[in-house]
């Protein structure tokens, strides 16, 4: 799937949880992705994070922290 699109979606999710969860935002974003994203979508963004972090240059800090958390799981 288009990684740019996935990045935009993660950023939108992060924008909500930054306000709602404060320092817990990365964990909240990661949890949201676990509960609502198809595994192939998670795998794809995690794969991009691992193999070519520069492809995720538009990813917000909170989003990046969330993907980092997910990347530890698989």
């Amino acid at each position, binding site marked *: 799937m288009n990684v740019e699109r996935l990045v935009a979606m993660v950023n939108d999710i992060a924008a909500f949880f930054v306000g709602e969860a404060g320092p817990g935002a990365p964990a909240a974003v990661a949890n*949201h992705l676990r509960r*609502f994203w198809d595994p*192939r*979508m998670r795998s794809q963004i995690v794969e991009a994070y691992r193999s070519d972090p520069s492809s995720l240059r538009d990813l917000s800090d909170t989003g990046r922290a969330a993907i980092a958390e997910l990347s530890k799981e698989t």
Partner: protein
Amino acid sequence: MYAKGYRDLGTPAPAARTLQGPRTMVTLEIDGASVTVPEGTSIMRAAALASRDIPKLCATDSLKSFGSCRLCLVEIEGRRGYPASCTTPVADGMKVRTESAKLTGLRRNVMELYISDHPLDCVTCPANGHCELQDMAERLDVTSTRYGLAGANHHEGEHDASNPYFQFDQSLCIVCSRCVRACDEVQGTFALTIQGRGFASQVVASAHEPFLQSECVSCGQCIEACPTGALLEKSVVRHGTAERAVTTTCAYCGVGCSFDVELKNEQVVRMAPDRNGHANHGHACVKGRFAFGYATHADRALKPMIRAKITDPWREVGWEEAIDHTAREFRRLQETYGADSIGGITSSRCTNEETFLVQKLVRAAFGTNNVDTCARVCHSPTGYGLKSTIGESAGTQAFDSVMASDVVIVVGANPTEGHPVFASRLKQRMRQGATLIVIDPRTIGLVRAPHIAADYHLQLRPGTNVAVINALSHVIVTGGLTRDAYVSERCELDSYQKWKKFIAEPRNSPEATQSITGVPAALVRGAARLYASAPNGAIYYGLGVTEHSQGTTMVMAIANLAMATGNLGREGVGVNPLRGQNNVQGSCDMGSFPHEFSGYRHVSDPAVRGAFESKWGVRLKSEPGLRIPNMFDAALDGSFKGVYVQGEDIAQSDPNTNHVTAALTAMECVVVQDLFLNETAKYAHVFLPGSSFLEKDGTFTNAERRISRVRKVMEPRAGFQDWEVTMLISNALGYPMRYRHPSEIMDEIASLTPTFAGVTYEKLDRLGSIQWPCNDEAPEGTPTMHVGTFVRGKGKFFVTEYVPTTESPSAEYPLVLTTGRILTQYNVGAQTRRTENVVWHSEDVLEIHPHDAETRGIADGDWVGITSRVGSTVLRADVTDRVQPGVVYTTFHFPESGANVVTTENSDWATNCPEYKVTAVEAIRVAHPAEWRARQEIDLRHTIHA
């Protein structure tokens, strides 16, 4: 003419609620029999309840008593004269006589006068056998008149056949005013009046215009009220009065009106609104009442068809070949690309049983959770937002609850167009004194209508909902208008304190947000105080809330506001999503979302999953599947290859049409099951004919969680009901389904879904309808939710930071396009375009403000080219100040108008519900639309390939 077989009690029941407390009962004597009724009941109604029907003509139990015809006179012991029983309330100890020689004489006198000015050719009258005047004449044995028939009369009166569905024959009119009162009291349009005085009195529409050109909205309530054949459906004239009736549920909007389908042999004569219907109480709209002709339209595709490539012509095949081909193709794809390479889409137009079965097919027979519903693109944020805050993904009230509301907020909804029967109820309540706050970018019909006006219209810029509602909450919090005792008892205090701190920040004030929202701060302050100070404040919302990048945030913000002001958990208050289609609530309830089973339980919950595995005899996946927009993306990257689409036209209704069609084109097996060869079918490899709501059994669940029966009135035209087709596919895939009737599917739903545990077809037939939750705790259902405590336990507040949409206007795209519906058309128009409703709306148009039109040289009726960041289309201009400067608006009922060619994939952060309501566009005048459109398509292809 009310529904066949209906027993009219003459006047309405007295209001159920009194400020004085419990209802007082009154005992009186009618014709020697003791009768006990609630105080305020008319003698006429009390007599009818005691099986003593009093003759009447101007009275009917859907309208306030009028006392005009003088046929219902009675004698009351100790009182002088002969009072009208319709306008005289009962009193304790009263002794009433409904029949005597004197009364009969008086009544016969009245009837003679009526008959002296009425054609006496009943045998040729289309209302013959279903006419109250005829019934009264027969009952009073009046067959002639002393006044003769030679005098002046109205027999040559006007005959207005301008409306496509009904006619007005003045010669049959007895000027009882029932039609005028129905239009006023029930519908609230005030389109009809009695013009003239005395003998010259006559019913006219607007300022004596043909019905079609008048303000009449064709709800049909005047026909329902007419005691003769003066106002009558043309279908009754054509086919004659019905022989039998079957009660069913409308297949249009989420109000879910109950109708009696009246039939003569197998011919549907008319749809008569059911006065016992719990959602509509005998009311209807132009779609539900009249627009059923699509079911028998010549465009219905009635043969299964297959083809190898979408560029091939269709080949008609038998059901067996089509089903075998479908199963073979799906298995081939899974063997080649993996189990998760296919999926299914359920429809909010189909029944609960059908959607339950499709998601079961996908999860159990396909072995994947790639199932989603068209509710994805409308109310998915409602599910997420309300589940998170108050614990249940559903509206909190019954529609009747609005009659106990003091202040109503309507936000992002246009009920007079989208949910007309509810709009009429709301207008009734407003005429009783309730006040209204409208939050909408457009001047919708509720802002100002006959005898009502909103106290506040917060005309915000599209995309700034959250900023507006935060500002409303800011005023309430900083002004000390919260109901802290309620919150302390019922909500999570940590979340409340965090929210309060956030919302009180100056950046959320009306003054700070004014430059974002465009709404003057004083209006926000006034509206906030009005809502917060109401004894009962209710919020009703629609897709103008959900179809935004912050749709879910806005739903949460609405719940925050209601909790903070104590407006949840009793009648008259609540948070109420107005669902666009007939079974949006039901399709969501039935486990159509990829991450949850029926009853909104996540697939990762081992106990829940275990229950389904045990019942279904298969292992089920614990990971969520693809949502509809994700399916498109996955199709384009090659990991999603096949989809079974039941009753949903994704190629027309989903945003960014070019993206959707590219995704469909990339798939190897698209199976469409529908009534018509819709836009999606152009990209399909298998077409399976669907069945209309008239051809099937099942249930729909409306916006108030009301489960109502859908009953088959004709055999499925293509041979199978939709649930049977799903069974055929499943059986061909080797996963047996053996249901003999949808009631057995409902039994399975009830066994697996706690909120449906007490629902059976027997109970539905007995009670008429049931609002879930229906279980041991609430065996007859739950009209009002969250009474005493929230479903999630304590209500939870969420911080709702306003985040501007990225789909913002620019120099290149300076206007904001927003979309919506019109009264006479429905959704993608597949049904209503194939009815005479096109008389009112035959094409989608672009509403543009006079200022924006003038600066672009656009005049009313000009062709306008609209270009967004993803596509272009052409529409005719409707220059109007219904929209504000900088905002343009269109509907999406016609595929050729291509409204979704220009909408983008921008979506809600939580649910991927598309942001239909905000698209940055430019509009220019176009002299030659076809050439302009072709040129734009070439440009777009160059852009894509660049």
